[in-house]
């Protein structure tokens, strides 16, 4: 047996910088070790030296495509410690923005991690083309396509503009019509099915033991989603389902994300219908009282947490951030053991790993 050392990355098409050091025996992987930190920017350290409002754009940068979830997760412990009650309308607006982000993030994932990594250029074009419609809505609401920094402690920065409701419903109608086409060319495509079915199987017991989150966890049959288990915002009033899948292979993880897009459309229709009138923000001081709090928010890639310690000043004493991608990283060396080298992009892609979010 002769072992060959291979490097996958750190520069590679698609997701950010991340290296996998692979040892292969012929065509089969003997061992795979992830080497991360190529985009480690020290967000937690910098956050201790800036005041809480100035931190918002920086804290949201680790995941520019899924910005609103990171934003809410950072704001939530501050609001808990300050004791400020966010107005209903603001919570609905945050929910609308978060679910739009979830759809955009899943389309991005299917385009790059699913499409580019398996050589499927049509999925790449479909995914990015449809995502543009959602970025237009983002721009209409917040002024920016991707990085909005839209939520502040106490509420949101702007109200829904005129014409937003109609444009949102039009976009959702279009997406619902286009999703079966995406299903046909990608998830039900015999070539992709051949590559992804029964590849990278993560059984339920292993998923729980490794602590994976998000669609990776739900693709292995564990029905856990923070929006249902520990509801935040207005999710306890909305009627939606949590798609899960029993097989635990790469195809089922993509299937879960695809169905989550459908559920996000359901949530968005309810939110835009039920949103009450009222103020969009409550005044809150630029100061964190003494205390500690941790938030749990379900982002597109899994559960994210922000643990904030306040010391009575306008700067946090400690900000600890943990994101879905970092939690799912442990599954990578486990799943890659013993597989054919050609399955590596499929398995790596199906985890929807976003290096910038993992490295912070």
């Amino acid at each position, binding site marked *: 047996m002769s072992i060959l050392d291979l490097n996958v990355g750190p520069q590679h098409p698609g997701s950010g910088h991340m290296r996998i050091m692979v040892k292969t025996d012929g065509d089969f992987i003997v061992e795979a070790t992830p080497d991360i*930190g190529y985009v480690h920017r020290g967000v937690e350290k910098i956050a201790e030296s800036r005041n809480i409002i100035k931190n918002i754009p920086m804290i949201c940068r680790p995941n520019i495509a899924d910005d609103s979830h990171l934003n809410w997760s950072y704001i939530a412990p501050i609001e808990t410690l300050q004791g400020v009650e966010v107005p209903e309308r603001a919570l609905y607006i945050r929910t609308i923005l978060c679910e739009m982000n979830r759809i955009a993030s899943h389309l991005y994932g299917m385009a790059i991690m699913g499409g580019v990594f398996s050589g499927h250029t049509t999925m790449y074009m479909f995914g990015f083309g449809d995502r543009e419609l959602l970025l237009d809505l983002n721009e209409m609401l917040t002024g920016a396509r991707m990085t909005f920094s839209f939520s502040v402690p106490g509420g949101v920065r702007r109200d829904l503009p005129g014409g937003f409701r109609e444009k949102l419903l039009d976009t959702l109608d279009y997406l619902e019509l286009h999703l079966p086409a995406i299903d046909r060319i990608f998830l039900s495509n015999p070539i992709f099915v051949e590559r992804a079915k029964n590849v990278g199987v993560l059984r339920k017991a292993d998923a729980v033991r490794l602590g994976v989150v998000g669609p990776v966890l739900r693709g292995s049959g564990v029905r856990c989603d923070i929006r249902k288990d520990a509801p935040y915002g207005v999710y306890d009033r909305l009627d939606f389902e949590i798609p899960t899948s029993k097989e635990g292979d790469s195809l089922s993880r993509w299937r879960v994300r695809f169905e989550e897009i459908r559920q996000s459309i359901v949530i968005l229709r309810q939110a835009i219908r039920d949103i009450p009138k009222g103020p969009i923000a409550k005044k809150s001081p630029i100061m964190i009282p003494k205390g500690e709090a941790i938030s749990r928010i379900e982002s597109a890639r899994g559960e994210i*947490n922000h*643990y904030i310690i306040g010391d009575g000043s306008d700067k946090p004493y400690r900000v600890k951030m943990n994101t879905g991608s970092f939690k799912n990283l442990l599954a990578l060396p486990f799943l890659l053991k013993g597989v054919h080298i050609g399955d590596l992009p499929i398995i790596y892609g199906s985890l929807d790993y976003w290096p910038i979010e993992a490295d912070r």
Partner: protein
Amino acid sequence: MTAAPLVVEERVATAARERLGSAVEEVKVEHRGRISITARKETARDVATCLHEMGFDHTIAVAGVDYPVEKRIEVIYFVSSFSSGDLKHVVVSLRINLDRDKPSMQTLTPIWESASFFEREAYEMFGVDFEGHPNLQKLLLQDNWDGPPPLRKDLRIPEMA
């Protein structure tokens, strides 16, 4: 929002106090879904095993906090449950205080494998030695990092005006 009684949280806290006794310094229900348990570095493993048996099967984060004035580094394991239905919304923060000059404790990866990379991060960011960790190496920092552990308060970065 009226405060519903914290039934599950109180039950967990009472069970923890009974089973752990003097192995823990404090068990406190902070608010809905948040319980805090302070243990000592010698008893951390036993407390973790007990929590695992109670149904807390994975870590959601491991945070280190530097308190230079009190000369301690606090390592906090946040754990939750995927398998027990009524514990899914509960987060237990297991706090262990370590001596700042030589912070070390036994690794909890045999109990919670999900803490593996989180402990590595705490090692390189705070200098905490997790004895028995299968692969305690740098994770995020550059290869030739020669400064103090970055998240300690010793390392000063230029303050924003």
